[in-house]
Structure formats: structure tokens, C-alpha cells
């Protein structure tokens, strides 16, 4: 069998095994890599960093477990940063399966930073039909959320008494894996001039750069790379930073396989011609 034929008939399961090894080894060996901070992530960091202590940050959980490995580290890093700055955090969710991820992150980060539910942060839950809710909060948040997710009235939390509309929210953060981030930008950014930053999966990042370029969002954290950059900026490396060497190794393998595959294709085509 010729080399080109051999290359074309490699069992795909061998490639899966190779990719698994390339991902597992860096996770176990933990090689040190330098994280270069990109401008969109630095802008997102500064948007949070420049808020005065006591300002309200609303974090919308617009992702679910299918994209948690990329977006969950962003949520954890953002919560750490917000709590460090003594900001008040309101968490809400647009996807039914997303809100438990917010609870997991809050239960991890809040005790680390000595933050108390109701005083420093609040989870107001989930409402289906996000477009009407997004526009409605511009009028009064209580029209859609009269209570937190446990059924306690919003006005029983001191910091919430002064929060009514987007005017009272310093920064809106959409952590998204789909079209919800664009809805926040178009409906809330466009109509109410709300300052917004977006953390999203790698798949969504290219379509959001146009909003960054036009100034409709203050910053963009894209994919695991973006999450690791944010972790570096707050000097608290987490799972994203740990995953980046594996990411680079996997990319290297994919590029190598692309080159080998195309070489095999070119060789077989040349042979067919002769």
C-alpha cells in the first residue's frame, strides 16, 4: 500500500485516541505557558475595574452545560473581580439549564471572598421569553422579577431598593453561547445605552467583534483563551489557564493532520494523473 493510500485509510478512532492523549498529557503535566492579554479582554476587565465600589453589575447567564467549559471560567473570574471591587452582583438566567451553573459558581466564589447572599449578591432567577423581559426592565425590573429565585421580595434586600431600571445598573454582562448576547446589545444597548460586556464561546466570538468595533459593547471575552486572559488579569489562574496548553497542543495536532491529509490528497491526485 502506498503512503498516500495509507494516509487516506487511517482509522478515525486512532485520531480520536491521539487527540485525547494530546489533551490529557498537558493537563496532567501542567507545562507553564505565558498568556498574552488581548485588547478586547483588557477592555472587558477595565469596564469592570473602573466601576465604583457599590455599583451594580448584572450578570446574565445565557449559556448552559453544553458550553460550560468555556464560559463557566469567565463567570468565576468575573465574580472574583466584582467581589474584589465590592460591587453588587445581580445574577439572572435566560436558559433553564444555565441558572444552576450560576449557583455552582456563586457557592464557590462567595465564601472565598466573604460575600453574603442578599447583601453583596442576588440571584433573581429565570424568565422565558427574554426579549420582552429585556425591554421591560428598562421600565421597571419588578414588572418581571418581583422576588428573587427563592421567592423573597426584591425590596427586602437593601441594595435592590435603589435598583429599578437600567439607569441603576452600572454594567451588564452577558455570558452567552447563542443569540441572547446579540439581543442584549440590540434591544438594551441600542434602546437604553446600557454599558455591556460579553463573554461568549469561541463559536460566537467572530459574530460579536462587529459590536466591539462599533463601540456597542465595552469588551469581549471569547472562548477558553479569553477566559484564561481574564484569569491572568485578576492574577487568579483557574481551569481556563490550566486548559490552554492542552488547547495549543490540540491545535498543533489538528494543523499537522490538516497538512498530512492535504499532502496525501495531492500525492494521490498526482498519481491518478500519471
Amino acid at each position, binding site marked *: 500500500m502506498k503512503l498516500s493510500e495509507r494516509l487516506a485509510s487511517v482509522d478515525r478512532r486512532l485520531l480520536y485516541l491521539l487527540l485525547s492523549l494530546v489533551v490529557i498529557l498537558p493537563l496532567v503535566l501542567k507545562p507553564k505557558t505565558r498568556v498574552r492579554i488581548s485588547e478586547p479582554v483588557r477592555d472587558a476587565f477595565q469596564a469592570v475595574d473602573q466601576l465604583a465600589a457599590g455599583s451594580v453589575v448584572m450578570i446574565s447567564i445565557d449559556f448552559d452545560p453544553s458550553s460550560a467549559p468555556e464560559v463557566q471560567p469567565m463567570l468565576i473570574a468575573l465574580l472574583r473581580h466584582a467581589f474584589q471591587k465590592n460591587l453588587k452582583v445581580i445574577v439572572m438566567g435566560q436558559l433553564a439549564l444555565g441558572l444552576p451553573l450560576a449557583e455552582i459558581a456563586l457557592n464557590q466564589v462567595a465564601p472565598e471572598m466573604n460575600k453574603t447572599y442578599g447583601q453583596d449578591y442576588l440571584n433573581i432567577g429565570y424568565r422565558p421569553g427574554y*426579549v420582552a423581559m429585556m425591554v421591560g426592565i428598562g421600565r421597571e425590573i419588578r414588572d418581571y422579577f418581583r422576588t428573587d429565585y427563592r421567592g423573597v421580595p426584591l425590596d427586602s434586600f437593601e441594595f435592590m431598593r435603589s435598583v429599578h431600571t437600567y439607569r441603576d445598573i452600572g454594567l451588564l454582562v452577558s455570558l452567552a453561547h447563542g443569540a441572547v448576547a446579540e439581543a442584549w446589545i440590540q*434591544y438594551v444597548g441600542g*434602546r437604553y445605552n446600557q454599558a455591556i460586556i460579553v463573554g461568549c464561546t469561541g*463559536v460566537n466570538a467572530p459574530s460579536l467583534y462587529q459590536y466591539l468595533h462599533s463601540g*456597542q459593547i465595552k469588551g469581549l471575552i471569547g472562548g477558553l483563551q479569553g477566559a484564561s486572559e481574564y484569569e491572568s488579569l485578576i492574577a487568579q489562574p483557574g481551569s481556563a489557564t490550566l*486548559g490552554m496548553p492542552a488547547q495549543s497542543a490540540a*491545535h498543533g495536532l489538528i494543523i499537522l493532520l490538516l497538512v498530512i491529509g492535504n499532502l496525501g490528497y495531492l500525492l494521490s491526485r498526482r498519481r491518478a494523473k500519471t
Partner: protein
Amino acid sequence: MIANIIGTWVAATLTLAILSFLYKDNPLYKVAEHLYVGISAGFALIYAWAFDVYPMLVDAFRHNLAQKNYWEAWILMVPTILGVMMLCRSIPKIAWISRWPISFTVGTGAGLGLVAAVQGYLLPQISDTLRPLVTVNNFVVYVGVIATLFYFYFSKEHKGGLGVVSRVGIIFIMVAFGASFGYTVMARISLLIGRFYFLLHDWLPVIR
């Protein structure tokens, strides 16, 4: 503590069951797949009741009645009736009734969407494109936008000057596809890393 350990073991078993599809389709994979679909649907149903129907309808109705806000209480019957009409879709004989709430939803969505599309997308993007040609980046944006628009102009055959411009347009489109595909590969690898991280960190104490 015990609940956490059981949860981690269940999650790890289901992860391995799903990954076993890479070898070949098998009953273990099918069980995990069906569990995911069923649990997601159940979760969505509970959330719809706990975070939508109960607080926005049942609780709001009772609250407004108690406050003697009769108008605000009874107006809630309008969306309730529309919601019930929507359910008629599952009964073929009266399925036509569901067209009314659907048209209401489409009308509201279109109205909201139109304003957002113009105010939050079209105008800011046009205004951002119209930048002075003083930097290379701005020049590239101009060429890219114009050439891509010409590529989607189908009223005239793409020959001569129009053909050249539309070919430039397709280069820009391909670059955009390439960037998008590159990011997609990165995202998929991240998911794999996430699962291996869970297996090696939370399930097996290999990474500490």
C-alpha cells in the same frame, strides 16, 4: 458530601457513556443520550412553572387581588387565554385556534425586532463603517463591505468590473468563514478539555 460523590460518579459514568460513541454506537450511549433529553425537558417544564407561570400569573393574580388592583389582576387573563389557545395546536380539529396567539406573538416579535434591528444593529453598524479613510484598517473595512455587497448583487451577471469586485467579495467571505471555523474548532477542543478536566480533577484525583 455523599451526594456530591454520587453526583460526580453519575456525571463521570454518563461522560464516558457519551464518549463511547467515538468507538461505535452502543446501548450505553443511547441510555445517556435519552437521559439527557428527558432530564432537559423535565427541567425546562419545572422552570416554566416555577419561574414563569407561578410568579407571573398565579402569584401576580393573587397579589393584585389582595391589593385590590382588579384591573391589573384580570388583565392577566388575556395572556392566559392566549396561552390556552396556543395549546389547541395539539388537537387537530381545533388547531386553527392557535393561529391567533401565534399571530399575536409574531406581531409583537416583529414590532420589537424591527426597532432593535434599526436602532441596535443597522444604524450603529452603518455609522461605524463610514469612518474616514485615514488608516489601513478603515480602508480594508470599506473594501470588504463594498465587495461583499456586490457579491450578493444578483440583478446583473458577474462579468467584467462587477465580476472582479464580486471575486474580491468572495475572498472576504472566505476569510470570515475561515475565522469562524477556526474559532469553532477552538470551541470544540475546549469542550473536550472541559470533560477531561472534570474526569481528571473532579472524578479521579489526578490533577490537583
